[in-house]
């Protein structure tokens, strides 16, 4: 006989399974569409399970314009640069804001966080004009700088709050042992805050990997486009804006893979990182 707590457990499991199924269905549909023969991928009404399997969509994507590898390389390179820049800027900044006796430290932190509520689109044009003046347009470094600026407030929020939660006693012990500020950051603050740093890394990667509008605006030659931009181009590949659905779904499938892999690799740190940033 099933007990009440067990029944509740089954119900919760069933609800979770249902939600997961609903959320994963579009992804599954997209992946299945990417292996349909070309004519079937665009068929009306659509088929759900492929009647045949074909890799033609992936072949077309591989050779699309400058080639898939170019766009994957651009996206990946930009994402890695964004991670590096984000960590280089936010780790010391968060450390400073958490522990150094800076005048008006709290108001500064709040002002920095206010950037979270400014719509990115509103910043894009002035930033583009500024980047154009210093020669950072049509450059992966420029795009990474742009992505870093999007990422900074959230990263700072997570890291600063995490660093603030590190017990002062440990820091004071390190000072007594003669450690300098950088040593304290490296040896005292970073080891227990790895989950938060990983969370920031993960967010920086996903933000940069998925970002479309900035990449479109910043880049002016197709050899510099990132994957989201080239997929938007592929969406209107044919006359009158028609879509090569098979190729587009192949692109969507490929673009998802790195995000899933990175998330799977880092997920054990992820929730801990978010929680550590949520409390002071």
């Amino acid at each position, binding site marked *: 006989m099933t007990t009440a707590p067990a029944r509740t457990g089954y119900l919760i499991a069933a609800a979770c399974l249902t939600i997961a199924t609903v959320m994963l269905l579009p992804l599954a549909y997209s992946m299945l569409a990417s292996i349909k023969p070309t004519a079937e991928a*665009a068929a*009306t009404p659509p088929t759900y399970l492929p009647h045949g399997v074909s890799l033609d969509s992936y072949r077309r994507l591989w050779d699309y314009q400058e080639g898939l590898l170019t766009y994957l390389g651009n996206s990946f390179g930009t994402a890695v640069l964004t991670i590096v820049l984000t960590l280089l800027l936010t780790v010391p900044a968060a450390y400073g804001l958490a522990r150094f006796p800076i005048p008006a430290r709290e108001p500064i932190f709040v002002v920095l966080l206010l950037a979270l509520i400014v719509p990115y689109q509103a910043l894009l044009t002035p930033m583009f*004009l500024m980047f154009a003046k210093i020669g950072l*347009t049509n450059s992966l470094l420029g795009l990474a700088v742009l992505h870093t600026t999007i990422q900074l407030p959230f990263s700072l929020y997570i890291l600063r709050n995490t660093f603030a939660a590190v017990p002062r006693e440990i820091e004071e012990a390190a000072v007594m042992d003669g450690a300098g500020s950088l040593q304290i950051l490296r040896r005292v603050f970073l080891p227990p805050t790895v989950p938060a740093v990983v969370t920031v890394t993960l967010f920086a990667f996903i933000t940069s990997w998925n970002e479309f509008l900035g990449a479109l*605006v910043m880049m002016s*030659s197709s050899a510099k486009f990132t994957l989201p931009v080239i997929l938007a181009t592929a969406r209107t590949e044919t*006359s*009158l*804006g028609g879509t090569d659905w098979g190729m587009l779904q192949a692109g969507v499938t490929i673009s998802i893979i790195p995000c899933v892999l990175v998330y799977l690799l880092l997920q054990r740190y992820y929730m801990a990182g978010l929680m550590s940033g949520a409390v002071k």
Partner: protein
Amino acid sequence: MRIRQRVALLTVAVLLGAAGCSQEAEAPESTAVAATTGCASSGELTMWERSGGNKDMVDMLVAAWNAKNPDCKVALTYIPHTEMVGKIAQGIASGQVPDLMGMDLIYAPQFEKAGQLVDLTDRLTGWPELTTASKGHMTVATFEDRLYGVPLYADVSALFYNKDLFTKAGLDPAKPPTSLPELRAYADKITALGGDVKGYYLPGNCAGCNIFTVGPLMWASGAKIEAAGPGDEPLVGDGVKQVLQFERDMVKAGNVHDGDRTENGETFHLQFGSGKVGMMGTGNFNITLARQQNPSMQFGITLLPGMTPNSSASFIGGDLVVVPKGSKRVNDAVNFMKFLLSDDVQVEVYAKALNLTTRADMVDNKYFKEEPLVQDVAKALTVGRTPYTLTFFEQINSPQGPWLKMLQRAYYTDDNLDTVIADAKKEMSDIAAKS
């Protein structure tokens, strides 16, 4: 995407305003240099073109130029077409522009008026090629008697009809409909074949597809659609109501697939080649596409008809090639234009690929002579028109605009058609009044 498109277009005015403050002086090159079909200086030329246009044709043209001019090849970048207008405006505002651009011809007047394209009048004056260049393109390439571009490629609309289905329905495949009542009668017979076959196709959720294919039915019936500017009255003439009634009747009679109602243009180009549609307004680009899709299908092309027999019209669309303000290579951009309009390219690139030539005097060529369908579709150039308004997107092309709203009410509701037209007329007039 469509929201992005709207946002992009709404920001255009702001960006163009910014451009007015920051644009660089016109290229320092002399305007007196005579154009050739080759390059005047070496180094890569950059060109932007929208995706979703006639990519194959543009690729071929650029390849032909690059083969002839290895020292100054054109580096072509396709921009997602829903983002193109905003991207151009942003580029011009910051001075980060390509040397030349392909531009959906319908948006050209907006950029000409804003002074964001290089005035090429002095450079192009006297070119004999321009006397026969596509009239629709040349109309929108001109603003206040100044010339800003030449045709890049032309897309015209026409009525495609499936000869196999005509034969099965007992119709003469050599006699396509010459009026809308005739079209209705033919569609009824084809739909009566049953199964998955329908006599007609109506893209129910695509503003652009409808101005391309339903707009000409109205023009051919004596109507006028868009408001050119403030004070100009849109939707004038009995033809508007007659065509709306015709399309409503076609939907009610079951002559279109139910799924057509959601067609937003993304699979529009694939419908005729499916072999399940008896007659459909579409473009010249569909000749090659339908053959690739359905090699055994026999089909013909005729002009889009109006209410009375032998009346016809067409929408001349496609792209212009223009030079954005800030271009450093205006002379070579003009040379590229000369190259596009040259006899050799018109025949050996455009016609050979069975695309329309952009000069009327080049239609009579060896490739078209071997291809009756292209000859048929080329006739549309003689009856075609290109709307000229600074607010084409807002009035017509927008998914939330009055044109599509009016069509959908006409097609899929029982609303009084006079009210439907009056509502759209007011909205279009209001939009034009702000231009």
